[in-house]
C-alpha cells in the first residue's frame, strides 16, 4: 500500500456559527497532482490553509509528510512549498534576490544556495531575467518565480492556491507544463486548488468540494463517468414548450436555464438526429459533447460553478493590484 503524503481526517474549521470546512477526509499519495475543485467560498482556501499550518483546525487531524500540522507546524513548513493565491514577492528586489531571501529563511545550506537557485531559475525559464526587478515581470513570470521559490528548499509537497487565477489561457498552460515537469523530475507531490474546471482535468485526482464538504473524489475520468453518457444542450426561443415535448416524446427530463436546455443521454450521437426530427418547437442551436467536470459539479450540487461571480472578483483583484502597483 502506498503511503499518504497528505492525510486529513474529519477536518473542520468553524468561524463562529459558520462552518467553512465541514469535515473533510482525504489522502494524497507521493508524486500525485491532486486538485481541489470548487466554487469560491466552498472552503478550498480554508482547507489548504489548515494543511499548510496557516490556520488551526477547529476539529479533526491532518498530517503532511507524516507530521501532525497542529503539533509541529514548523517541521511541516520546512517540508512544504507554498504558492499563495495573492502575489507574495518583493517586487523591488530581483528574481534572484527573492530566491536568496527564501533560501536564507528556509535554511538552505550555504554551499547549495547558488546551485539550487540557478537550477530553479533554469527549470522555470527565468534564468535570463534573474537580475531584473520583479516589478518588471508579467503575471505569468511572477507566478513561475513563486513556484521556483516554493521548490527551493526541496519540499515534499508543493501547495498552490489558485495558481493560475487571473492569467491568460496560454500562460495557464505553461504553468501546467512546469508543474508536470517538477512532479516528474523532482518527484514532488502537488496539491492545488482551482475553480477552473478545464484545468482540473490535468490533475491525477480531484476532490470536488462544495459548501465545506467533499462531494466527489476520483480521477477526472471516474468523475465524468458519474454523468450518464453525453451532454446535449439546445437553445430555443420557446424553451418551455421544447422542454415539455422532449420530456413527453423522448423520455428525457432536460434542465432549463433561461433559453438553454441541457440533458444527459446515454448515446448522444443517436439522440441528436431524433431530437431534431421529432421536435416541433423552434430550435436555434444543438450542442453535443462529452461530459466535463462542470457537468459533474452540476449533477452533484444542482448548481453551475458561479463563473460570473468569479470573473468579477478576478477583475477587481486585477484592478486593485494595478492601482497599488502605481502607488508603490
Amino acid at each position, binding site marked *: *500500500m*502506498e*503511503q499518504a*503524503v497528505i492525510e486529513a481526517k474529519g477536518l473542520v474549521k468553524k468561524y463562529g456559527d459558520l462552518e467553512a470546512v465541514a469535515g473533510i477526509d482525504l489522502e494524497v*499519495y*507521493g*508524486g500525485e497532482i491532486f486538485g481541489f475543485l470548487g466554487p469560491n467560498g466552498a472552503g478550498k482556501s480554508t482547507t489548504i490553509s489548515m494543511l*499548510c*499550518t*496557516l490556520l*488551526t483546525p477547529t476539529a479533526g487531524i491532518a498530517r503532511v509528510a*507524516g507530521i501532525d500540522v497542529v503539533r509541529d507546524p*514548523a*517541521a511541516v*513548513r*520546512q*517540508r512544504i512549498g*507554498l504558492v*499563495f493565491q*495573492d*502575489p*507574495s*514577492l*518583493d*517586487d*523591488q*528586489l530581483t528574481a534572484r*534576490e527573492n530566491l*536568496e*531571501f*527564501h533560501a*536564507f*529563511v*528556509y*535554511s538552505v545550506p550555504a554551499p547549495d544556495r547558488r546551485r539550487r537557485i540557478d537550477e530553479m531559475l533554469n527549470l522555470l525559464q527565468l534564468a535570463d531575467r534573474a537580475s531584473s526587478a520583479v516589478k518588471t515581470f508579467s503575471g505569468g513570470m511572477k507566478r513561475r518565480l513563486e513556484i521556483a*521559490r516554493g521548490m527551493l*528548499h*526541496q519540499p*515534499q509537497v508543493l501547495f498552490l492556491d489558485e495558481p493560475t487565477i487571473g492569467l491568460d489561457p496560454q500562460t495557464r498552460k505553461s504553468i501546467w507544463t512546469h508543474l508536470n515537469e517538477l512532479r516528474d523530475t*523532482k*518527484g*514532488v*507531490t502537488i496539491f492545488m486548488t482551482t475553480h477552473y474546471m478545464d484545468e482540473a482535468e490535468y490533475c491525477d485526482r480531484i476532490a470536488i468540494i462544495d459548501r465545506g464538504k467533499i462531494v466527489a473524489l476520483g480521477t477526472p475520468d471516474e468523475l465524468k463517468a458519474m454523468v450518464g453518457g453525453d451532454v446535449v444542450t439546445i437553445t430555443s426561443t420557446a424553451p418551455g414548450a421544447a422542454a415539455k415535448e422532449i420530456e413527453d416524446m423522448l423520455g428525457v427530463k432536460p434542465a432549463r436555464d433561461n433559453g438553454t436546455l441541457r440533458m444527459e443521454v446515454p448515446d448522444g450521437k443517436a439522440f441528436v438526429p431524433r431530437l431534431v426530427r421529432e421536435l416541433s418547437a423552434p430550435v436555434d442551436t444543438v450542442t453535443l459533447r462529452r461530459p466535463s467536470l462542470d457537468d459533474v459539479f452540476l449533477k452533484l450540487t444542482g448548481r453551475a460553478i458561479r463563473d460570473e461571480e468569479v470573473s468579477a472578483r478576478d477583475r477587481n483583484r486585477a484592478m486593485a493590484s494595478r492601482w*497599488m502597483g502605481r502607488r*508603490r
Partner: protein
Amino acid sequence: MTVETAIGPVAAAQPAPVDTRAASLRAIYIIWYRDILRYWRDRWRLVASLAQPLLFLVVFGSGLSSSLGGAFGRGTGISYIQFMYPGIIGMSILFSAIFGAMSIVWDREFGFLKEVLVAPIDRWAVAIGKALGGTTQAMIQGLILLVLAPFVGVNLNLLTVLELIPLAAILAFGLASFGVAIASMMKSLQGFQVVMNFLMMPMFFLSGALFPLTNLPGWMTLLTRLDPASYGIDPIRRVVLSNSGVRNVDSLGLTINGHVLPVSLEAGIMLAFGAVLLGIAVVMFQRRD
C-alpha cells in the same frame, strides 16, 4: 506497511533537522539585509528624505532665528538655528525610524509579509530583523545631516562624531522598535495615517527638537518628559553643541525636578524604552493571524 516505504524520489531529499536558533539568526540577518538593500536601491527616497530637514533648517530655522534675534538662548550664546540643528537630526531619525518600520504594513498589503511569516523561523526573529533594519536606516538618515554642520555654525570634531554614532543608534533603535510594535498591530495602510497624526507628530513636537524644554507650562512639561524621543534628542544636542562655544548647553536640556539628567541616564532610558517596545513587538508577532 513500514514507515520506510519509498514515496518517490523525494524520500531521499528529507531535510536534515534544522537548528532553529541558527535559522532565526540567519533570518534576522536576511530580513535586515533586505531592508538595507531596498533602502540603498531607492535613491529617490534618500534624496527626498533630505528635503524635509533642509526645509526646516533653511526656512523655519532662518525665519525664526531672525524674528527671535538675540532673545533666544538666555545668555548661552546659542543661536536658534544652532539649537534647532541637532533637533532636526533627531527629527530625521524619528521619522525615518517610524517610516522604516511601517514597511511591515506595506509588506502585509503587498503579500510579502506572508512569505516571511510562513517560513519555518521564530517570529521574534522577524520583529528583531525589522527593528534592526529600521534602526540602521534611521541612523544613516540622521548622521548624514552632520555634513550640514558648517553651514549652521556648528563645529564638530572626530570625538563628537564618534560619540554621536551610538547616540543616534540608540534613538533610532528606540523609535524603530516603537514603529515595529505599532506596525505589528496595524492591518491596513489606513491605520498609518492615524499613527502619523496622533503619535509621530506629537512625539516630534514634544521632543525638544524645536524649542528648549524649560519654562514650559506644567501640563506640557509633563508631556515632554513622557515623550521617549526627548531622552534621545537631548543627548544628541549636548554632544553636537559641545564644541561650538556654547556656554552651558545643559541649561537648555532635559531636566526632571530641576536636575539635569546625565547623558548616560538619558541613553539608558531610551534603550530601555526600545527594549520594552521590541518585546511588545515580539509578542504581537507571535500571535498567529
